[in-house]
Structures are given as C-alpha cells and as structure tokens.
C-alpha cells in the first residue's frame, strides 16, 4: 500500500513518541529498582549461633537468619501480617474433614544464586524442617502430614489435625533453595547460606561481624534496602557498643542501655525508636511439690499484690518496661478488662494470714543473672525484696543462664528441684500470641511436649490450651485465649506476669533512613534502610 507522505511522517512521530514513552517507562521502572549504594555499619548486642533456619534454637538466631531468609507470610513494620512469599493462601477443609492449606506462591521470586523459587523448594524446605535429625523444631511442622505440589507456584499442605500454631507462626515454612543445598550439602549451606531475602550473605566471623550485600534481584521492589553493604558488628558489652556509636564507628546500634536512653534521646542528630521487644517476663511458683505453700491460690495472689512492679520498672529499668496482665497490649487474646494485680502489701499480708501463714514462710527464690534482657538480675533482686517484705522470705539464689535453664526444665531426673520461686521469661512474640508460650509454661508438664518448663497443673486450663491449639478459626481461637487468660489471672497460674521489656535502637538521623521491621517475633530486620546522602 502506498503511504501518503504526511501520514507516514505522523506515523513516524507516533512511533517515536511510543518508543520514547516506552523508554521513559522502562527507565522509570529501573529507577525504582535502582541498585543500592553505599555501606552501613551497625552494631548488635547479641548474635545468632547459626545461619541455617532449621537450627534456630533461640530468638537471637532470627537476627541473622531473618536478613537472609524469608517465609510465606510476614509481619510488616506495623505488625500486621502480610502475604509475603505467598501471594495468597486459603484454609479449606479436605474431603476427610482435615484442614488443607492451599498456597499460591508469588511469581518472580529468586534465590540469591539466581534459582527461581518454586513449590519444589517449599516442599524441600518442609522436608528439612520436619526431620528431627537436622531440625531443632520439627514439631512445629509435624502437624502437616502431606505436601502436595499442584504446580510450580501452587501447593497444598494436608494437615493430619488442626494446628492453630501453624497460622500464628507465619505458616512456619522458610524458603530454602533445594538445588543449591543438594549440590553443596548441609554443612556448606550453613556456612554460605542462600535465601530469598533482601540481603545476600557475604562473610561471617564468629563473635565479630556478619557482612551482607543487598540483593539486586530482590522480589519486593517497594520495600527493600537502599544500602549496598551492611556490616553487622557484634558488641555484647553495653559500654563498648555505646562507645562505638559515639565515636562514629557504627551508625546504628541495638539495645541502648536503659540508663543511657535519656542521653541518647537528647543527642543532636540521633533518632531513637523504643519498641516492645516481644519478650514476656514473669515469676513462676512451685506448685508441683505436695507441701509447697504456693499450692494455695491465696499465697500466689499475695505474691501478686506484694510487688510494686511499676516502681521497679521506673527505678531499676529506667522506665524501659511495659506491664501486662496476661497477654500484652495489641497481642492476640488481649483483654483490656484484665488489669495487673495492684500493689497492696497490706492485702498481701492478709491473704497470707488467711492461707495459714501469719508469720510468713521461707522459700528459695531463683534469680537469673545473665542479662538476657537488660537489668534482669536487678529486677529479680528487687522483686524478691518486695516478697520478703510481706513475709514471703526469699533466700535468693543467683543462677547464670546455663544453670537457670537447667533448673527450670521439667523432666530431668534428679536434683536440683525448683522448689520455690523462679523468675522466668517466654516470648509471646510480636505483636503477640500466647499460644506457644502457654503450651510451654502454663499447660501442665507431660513428657512428649506439653509444659516443658511448667509448674502448673490445672485440668480446666489444660483442656482449653489443647483446644485452642486445634482451633484454626481466628475469632473462635481469640475467644478461647481470652478465656484462658481470665482463668490464668484469677488463679495466678503459670506464673505471675511482671513486664515486657522495651528495646531502644538509635541511629544517626542525618545519615541513615531506617524503619524498624520485625523478623518473625523479634526486631532488627533491615528491610527498609537507606543512606540519606550519596556515600
């Protein structure tokens, strides 16, 4: 067809215009995913013992693992659950009445070595996580009896019984690269981990530092780091960490010591963020020995009234603690009607008298000295002093972490017995769900899993805890949790809640833009961090 010259020209213009427009969009698109630049050095107060998700044994292990690996669902900066590696998921009931989780994987997610994320990787991850030979928490995924791959981006988890903890725990599965692990083996994988997270592993020196690099092909183009290299230094000593920040060696620090928070807030150019750390501290009482005074609920209530927790938080922790009745504010099962026991030493003495101890009684009181949370030792000493002042005369026994864990664990044969009061902690996570914690310290001890650190034995509460574990409907479960909380509160079971520690991070505002993101139940994710000037 013969083109009219004029229309050919206008066609050309249109084509050029279209090309230009296309180029601009393409440029704009790449500008959005512009490669990260600059480097940032930060300091943590503790470090992970492992880089392999299946060997996570304590909260602290998430600090490193969570930078490199991701899960199907994620809590975001506002502590809301967001579909993460899972584009969508649905809970259905299978033909046999058992629950089935239908998950659709997000497309276009890549591992750090370039492999694409597929359902096969998730199945491999599930196999790894459920094998007790390699995994420390195989019981978290043991309720899934079959993994069905529907296609490369869709799979179904067939549960053998309902498991609410699966949903609470972000669908429990970490994305691990099947081909890579099969190629290099487990040990090499633990040394050079590969995940889908925003940070790529570069190197690690134990007790010194972890070096990470921003992953250019990271799937989440909106929430991603803008810094190219991140060096996480490990400085457990408070004063050293603070000194490192003040001298400029690091530009972000973890866990500002409570006594220095005021100073940090006043520092020019420094921004701080104080957040609930997700740990829950409480005092546990021995109720499994037949002659224990704590068998009587009035004695436990007396203990609850005897301690002025608010004063302790204010004086000993410099205000860095939040009281909670049974379940923290914002957590699942939170009931604003439940208020912590009021400080009332007179009432405490009366209750003791009613229970048959007009002159009080002596009891060993075990205190943790290792600062798993700031000031734990001093808080314990203060609490025991309050107890002593109403007649529950504490013979304080200080224990370092190893001995403390040993003492608290049920199911050991032989001494020592936990025969008094024990200060304990069990994280309910962020924003908080007491399910797992209560299974461990509220449900009575039964060999095989329940009550691993529990000194309580209440059949009604036991039944409710087992029921909530099987209730996958969130609303119904929340009701159950509230019920349990009420009983727990009235009867002072599973310990007396004291406080949730607050943690403060500090960074140089003129240099660093940082938004706190959680990793599972703990803070310290560097999901959104960038440098304000070109470095």
């Amino acid at each position, binding site marked *: 067809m013969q083109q009219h010259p004029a229309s050919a020209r206008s066609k050309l213009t249109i084509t050029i215009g279209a090309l230009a427009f296309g180029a601009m969009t393409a440029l704009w698109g790449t500008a959005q995913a512009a490669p990260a630049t600059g480097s940032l050095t930060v300091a943590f107060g503790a470090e992970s*013992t492992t880089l392999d998700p299946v060997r996570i044994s304590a909260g602290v292990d998430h600090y490193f693992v969570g930078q490199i690996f991701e899960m199907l669902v994620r809590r975001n900066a506002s502590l809301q659950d967001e579909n993460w590696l899972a584009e969508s998921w649905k809970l259905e009931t299978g033909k046999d009445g058992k629950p089935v989780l239908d998950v659709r994987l997000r497309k276009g997610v890549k591992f750090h070595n370039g492999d694409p994320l597929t359902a096969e990787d998730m199945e491999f991850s599930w196999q790894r996580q459920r094998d*007790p030979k390699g995994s*420390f928490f195989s019981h978290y995924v043991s309720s899934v009896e079959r993994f069905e791959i529907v296609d490369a981006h869709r799979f179904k988890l067939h549960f053998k019984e309902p498991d609410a903890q699966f949903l609470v725990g972000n669908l429990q599965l970490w994305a691990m690269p099947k081909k890579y692990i099969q190629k290099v083996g487990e040990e090499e994988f633990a040394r050079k981990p590969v995940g889908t997270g925003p940070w790529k592993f570069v190197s690690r020196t*134990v007790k010194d530092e972890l070096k990470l690099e921003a992953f250019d092909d990271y799937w989440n183009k909106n929430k991603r780091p803008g810094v190219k290299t991140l060096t996480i230094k490990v400085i457990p000593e408070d004063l*050293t960490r603070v000194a490192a920040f003040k001298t400029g060696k690091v530009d972000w620090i973890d866990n500002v010591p409570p006594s220095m928070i005021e100073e940090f807030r006043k520092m020019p150019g420094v921004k701080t963020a104080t957040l609930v750390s997700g740990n829950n501290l409480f005092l546990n009482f021995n109720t499994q020995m037949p002659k224990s005074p704590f068998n009587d609920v009035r004695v436990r209530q007396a203990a609850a009234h005897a301690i002025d927790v608010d004063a302790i938080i204010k004086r000993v922790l410099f205000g860095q603690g939040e009281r909670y009745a049974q379940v923290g504010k914002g957590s699942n099962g939170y009931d604003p009607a439940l208020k912590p026991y009021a400080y009332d030493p007179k009432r405490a003495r009366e209750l003791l008298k009613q229970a048959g101890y007009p002159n009080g009684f002596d009891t060993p009181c075990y205190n943790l000295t290792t600062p798993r949370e700031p000031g734990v030792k001093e808080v314990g000493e203060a609490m025991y002093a309050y107890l002593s002042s109403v007649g529950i005369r504490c013979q304080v026994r200080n224990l370092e972490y*190893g001995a403390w864990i040993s003492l608290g664990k049920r199911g050991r044969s032989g001494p020592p017995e936990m025969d008094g009061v024990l200060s304990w902690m069990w994280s309910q996570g962020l924003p908080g769900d007491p399910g797992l914690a209560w299974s461990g310290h509220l449900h009575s001890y039964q060999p095989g899993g329940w009550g691993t650190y529990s000194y309580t034995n209440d059949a009604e509460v036991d039944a409710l805890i087992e029921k909530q574990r099987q209730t996958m409907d969130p609303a119904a479960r929340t009701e159950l949790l509230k019920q349990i909380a009420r009983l727990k509160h009235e009867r002072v079971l599973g310990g007396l809640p004291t406080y949730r520690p607050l943690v403060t991070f500090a960074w140089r505002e003129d240099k660093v833009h940082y938004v706190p993101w959680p990793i599972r139940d703990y803070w310290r994710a560097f999901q959104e961090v960038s440098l304000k000037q070109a470095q």
Partner: protein
Amino acid sequence: MSIAKRLLHGLVSILGASVIIFLISRLSGDPLALLLPADAPPDVIEQTRQHLGLDQPLVAQYLKFLGHALTGDFGNSYRWQEPALGLILDRLPATVELALAALAFSIAMAVPFGVLSAVHRGSWFDRFAKVFAMVGQAMPNFWVGLLLILFFAVQLNWLPAFGRESWSSLVLPAIALGWYPVAAQTRIVRSAMLDVLDSDYIRMGRAMGLPERVLVWKYALRNAAIPLVTILGVYFAAMLGGAFVVEVIFAWPGVGRTVVEAVFARDFPVVQAGVMLTSVLFVLSNLLVDLSYSLIDPRIRHG
C-alpha cells in the same frame, strides 16, 4: 635433669591436665538445654545428643577426645559449629599480644625503679618505691583494670576502654595485667643491682674513672638483667593465666575471654581446647625457664 626427662614430665603434666579438664567440663552440666529451643521435643533432644556423641560412656568419650586432640582436632564448638581449636587459635594472637605488652610494661616500670632504688639505697626514693611496689601487689588486677577504665576512659576519655581496635586499646589492659609483677620484678632488679654494684668488676670500673651513669646503666644493669630475664618466662606464663579476668573486663578478644564464655555456655570443645592450649603454653614456658636457669647457672642444674 636431662632435657628429655623434663620434656617427659611436661608431657605427663599436660596429659594429666587433659584428663582433669575433660572430666570436669563433662560434669559441668548438660549443654543440650542451652543449644536447643525451650520446647524441643524429646526425639530432637535424643538426636542431638547422639549427634554430639554425648550418649557414649565417659571413658569412650575421653579416648575419642584424646585421639582427635593429638591430631589437633578438638571437635566443633557446640555453639558455633566451627572447629573449636580454630576459634581458640584465632584469638591466641590477641592474648599473646596482651601478655607481651603487659610484660613490657612491667619491665618498663621495674627496671628504672629497681635500678634507682639500688643506686640510691636507703633514700626516700628507695622507700617510696618499696611502698609503691607493696601496694601494687595488694591490688587485684581486675580492680586495677576497673579503676583504669573509670579514670582514663570514663572520666578523662583519653583511652579506649574496650575491644581491640587500635594500638591504644592495648594500653589499659596491658597496665592492668602487668601491674602485679612490678613489685616482685623491682625487688629482683634491685637486689641484683645491689650485688653487682658491690662487685670488684664495678669497683674497678669506678677506679678507672668511668662515669657512674655509664657504670650503672650500661655495665651493672647488664648483669642484673640475667636473673630478671630468667624470670620473665615464668611471668609470661603467669600472664597467660591471669589474662582471663583482664580480658573479660576489657572485652579483649583473647583466649581467656573465649574460655570464660564457653564455660558459661557449656561449650565443652572450646573449653577443652582453650584450657589445653593454655596449659601447653604454660608448661612450655616453665620448661624454657628451667632450661635457661640451668644454662645460666650450672650450679642450679641438678641430676
């Protein structure tokens, strides 16, 4: 005692030490509670126990430990899944650095004090030095460390208090560790100097008209140095042991601190590797000192 016999004794000592340390660390408690999550089910606990070989009888465990140790394999740290010996050896340079610096500090203090006390025997300086040394010997090294931190780091902010960043981080820990031997070393230098200054050798030099200063600092000191040098080996060994607490206070990344942490974490492999290494160094230093004694003074050599 011949060198061979001494070596044999040293070897027996180290072997005995290994048994003691092995037994004791095994008795210090179950590491599994610290390695696993709080709600780990029994089968995971069993698996880990078998994996770490903790279910074997003690004798079997010891023999296995010994066999591997002879090849330099102390197993993997329970906590860090890295070779235990590697973790210790990585930190050995830091401890050696600290011990040497402390030694250097103590000599730098002891020699001038000792010499001047001897030269000005009976004077106020002599008495002052003696008192100073006595007081110094009564102060625990970790307290000295804390005071140094308080004064130089916190109040004056002159020197770093923790970690091993630059050469200036070495100053305070070295002083804290090297403080204690200053007293004894001063006394040694002083008495050796007194002996030498009285000798014919020096008297002749004086008669020949050599200036006193040269006599003291060049000739007399050389002779006085001998007993000091022989004792240095002993002190170096002592510093290795004393470094534990100082390292903890100053967060110095050395062997001592690592062992202390490992003890608390029930990390047996690291405790074993650390203590064994320190013992070997200890024994070697003492061996060297014994040897140098007999070399320098044939009278001390005994059969």
